[in-house]
């Protein structure tokens, strides 16, 4: 077993002798082995540092510092103590920026719709120093970033993070657990040594309800005991624009270009521009530990007052009115969420398949177009043979001859698609001999990687729109190489369905493809809707 993995590992790095490549590919287990190796790499990349918190402090206390006489610093460089502090923090921020852009420094683990520079993020994506990076989390998901050297970040829905020059929170919330990690937000530099929440609202005056921490699982994924904050405190954070920092554990520092450094300890919070930290109220009840906030919020107006200068000017009735509005919005969102969950549950209860592997319905195609995604159902992309077990065959009364013909249809489609892809790859200057040994998905990925600029995103959106009937079809043979590669699979999807329907009829085809004991393929290429220009 280990030998097979070792060969797969060498194959992945193009270090396997050519005579062994063929044998390995013929074994039929290569893709599975590669997936396991990728998963191991991701797990290794997510290994945490073993030292933090009190244990770290204890060790640092024990380390003997060499005694050296400090060289006096010329006053013209550092005229004031504040400037010295600023320089130290700026240096620390720069350290963080360097560390943050270190190769494969962060592993991103999306749990739903997460975009990186407008492209969907893959599972266990490694983020490195590759120019401009921005991570955007969709409305129904969360993501986490883990760096063995720096710590862990959790991003709830609606968060935007960029890596252009070190980590920068552009919008939303971030739960940070780190040892000396530095990042920026809203013109502030923040250094966290422990656990803290950063809440960043770019639009001044926006009132938004955030139940960010309600969504966090209690440390199961992060191997760390995440503390939960009171919804009251979070609501206070987002009641005004700019950055608000809450320290849950350890300590943190915050400093702007023209503001003095602010040091915060556990239990303290500060809004950007505040002269001194305040205290956020720790959860007092189970409701406050992630449940729906209660009217106890009214009892803590001081939390709000510390959060935003505008709020300080508000009267008590105005504050109460604001709280009412915030709570109403939260309740409305909760109701909407419940309705959506029920809608999904109802579909399952009715016995309909959660996913349609037959012809996509117009509303499904429109939804895909709206989301900027392309859904493909056939097995042609996987180099795998179509399979149906006895139950599936009995359910649709599939004869052996029909089964053989079904496989023949899919195999022919797979071969046609691969031949077209190879032709496209050759057309753009690729080496067909090398490509011949690749899996179809690797070949498709290679074609995608050769795309320029937004070609991939444009191609997916164009195809999704064409498929939904929102725009006219591109003439045959026109379009970018990426466009034509993916179009090949849409055409093969349609063609195989037509051939199957001719063989079995529409009802039996649908029944066979959607049967739970039939092998299913599901590929969704999502790039998100086009950004407004």
């Amino acid at each position: 077993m280990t030998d097979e993995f070792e060969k797969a590992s060498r194959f992945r790095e193009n270090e396997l002798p050519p005579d062994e490549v063929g044998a390995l590919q013929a074994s039929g287990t290569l893709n599975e082995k590669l997936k396991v190796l990728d998963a191991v790499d991701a797990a290794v990349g997510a290994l945490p540092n073993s030292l933090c918190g009190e244990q770290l402090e204890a060790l640092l206390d024990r380390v003997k510092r060499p005694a050296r006489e400090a060289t006096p610093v010329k006053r013209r460089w550092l005229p004031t103590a504040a400037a010295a502090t600023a320089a130290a923090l700026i240096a620390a921020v720069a350290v963080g920026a360097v560390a943050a852009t270190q190769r494969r420094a962060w592993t991103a683990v999306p749990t739903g719709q997460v975009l990186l520079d407008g492209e969907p993020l893959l599972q266990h994506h490694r983020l490195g120093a590759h120019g401009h990076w921005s991570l955007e989390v969709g409305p129904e998901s969360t993501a986490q970033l883990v760096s063995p050297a720096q710590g862990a970040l959790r991003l709830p829905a609606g968060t935007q993070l960029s890596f252009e020059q070190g980590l920068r929170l552009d919008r939303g919330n971030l739960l940070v657990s780190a040892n000396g990690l530095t990042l920026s937000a809203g013109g502030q530099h923040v250094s966290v040594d422990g656990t803290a929440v950063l809440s960043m609202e770019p639009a001044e005056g926006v009132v938004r309800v955030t139940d960010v921490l309600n969504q966090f699982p209690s440390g199961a994924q992060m191997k760390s005991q995440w503390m939960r904050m009171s919804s009251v405190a979070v609501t206070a954070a987002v009641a005004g624009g700019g950055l608000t920092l809450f320290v849950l554990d350890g300590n943190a520092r915050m400093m702007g270009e023209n503001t003095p450094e602010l040091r915060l300890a556990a239990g303290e919070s500060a809004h950007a521009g505040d002269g001194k930290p305040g205290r956020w109220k720790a959860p007092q009840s189970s409701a406050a530990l992630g449940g729906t906030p209660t009217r106890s919020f009214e009892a803590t107006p001081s939390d709000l007052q510390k959060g935003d200068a505008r709020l300080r000017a508000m009267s008590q009735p105005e504050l109460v009115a604001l709280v009412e509005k915030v709570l109403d919005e939260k309740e409305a969102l909760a109701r909407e969420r419940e309705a959506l969950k029920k809608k999904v549950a109802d579909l399952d209860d009715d016995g309909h398949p959660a996913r349609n592997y037959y012809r996509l319905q117009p509303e499904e195609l429109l939804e895909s177009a709206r989301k900027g995604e392309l859904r493909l159902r056939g097995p042609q992309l996987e180099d795998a043979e179509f399979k149906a077990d006895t139950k599936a065959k009995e359910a649709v009364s599939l004869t052996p001859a029909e089964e053989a013909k079904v496989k023949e249809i899919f195999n022919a489609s797979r071969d046609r698609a691969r031949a077209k892809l190879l032709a496209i790859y050759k057309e753009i200057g690729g080496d067909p001999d090398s490509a011949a040994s690749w899996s179809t998905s690797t070949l498709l990925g290679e074609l995608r990687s050769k795309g320029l600029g937004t070609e991939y995103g444009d191609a997916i959106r164009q195809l999704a729109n064409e498929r939904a009937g929102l725009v006219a079809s591109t003439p045959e043979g026109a379009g970018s190489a990426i466009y034509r590669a993916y179009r090949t699979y849409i055409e093969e999807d349609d063609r195989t369905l037509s051939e199957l329907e001719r063989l079995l009829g529409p009802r039996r085809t649908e029944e066979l493809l959607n049967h739970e004991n039939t092998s299913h393929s599901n590929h969704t290429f999502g790039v998100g809707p086009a950004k407004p220009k």
Partner: protein
Amino acid sequence: MELDRLTVERLRRGERDAQDAFLRRYAPVLHSFVRRAGPPGAADDLTQELLEKLLTVVERFSPDGPAQLTTWVFTVAHRWLLDEKKRRHLEVAPLEEGMDVVDGRESPDVHVHGRQLEAALESALQQLPEAQRRVFVLTQVHHQPLEAVAEVERVPVGTLKSRLHRARATLAAALEPLLHRGPPVKAKET
């Protein structure tokens, strides 16, 4: 590099803040390195010794040299760990023979049932032959350049790659059952 220069200059001047910043920056990663690649059960003490050594020798680091400060720190740590083994009269395992470190930890199979992937991975790492484990931790966990690690190990880069392939394969074989089983079901939030 400019940042490295600034850091080292401040350390040379003996600035306490700079020492603290240096220690806070490197203590967690070096502790992880020592715990995973060094002898079992002594990570705290060894990391303390290593940090003290680094504070005394960091002024030798040349910001104009080819290595970044982090690479230099890990190179020093790597050499120090090998020297430390010699001082303790522990032999470095020959490459091909391997020598499992027996430290009383559970086998990967035990972890598969009920523990998360991280625990199984940590355990599987400890089952690797020491030479493989050391280079794997340095290059894959701490992202150190192959060339720098190969130089300290006194082996060609190709040999180092062989160790890495073997180590990764061993880990994959140990973790495959857990990976096939998928992530554990999360407790329902209330």
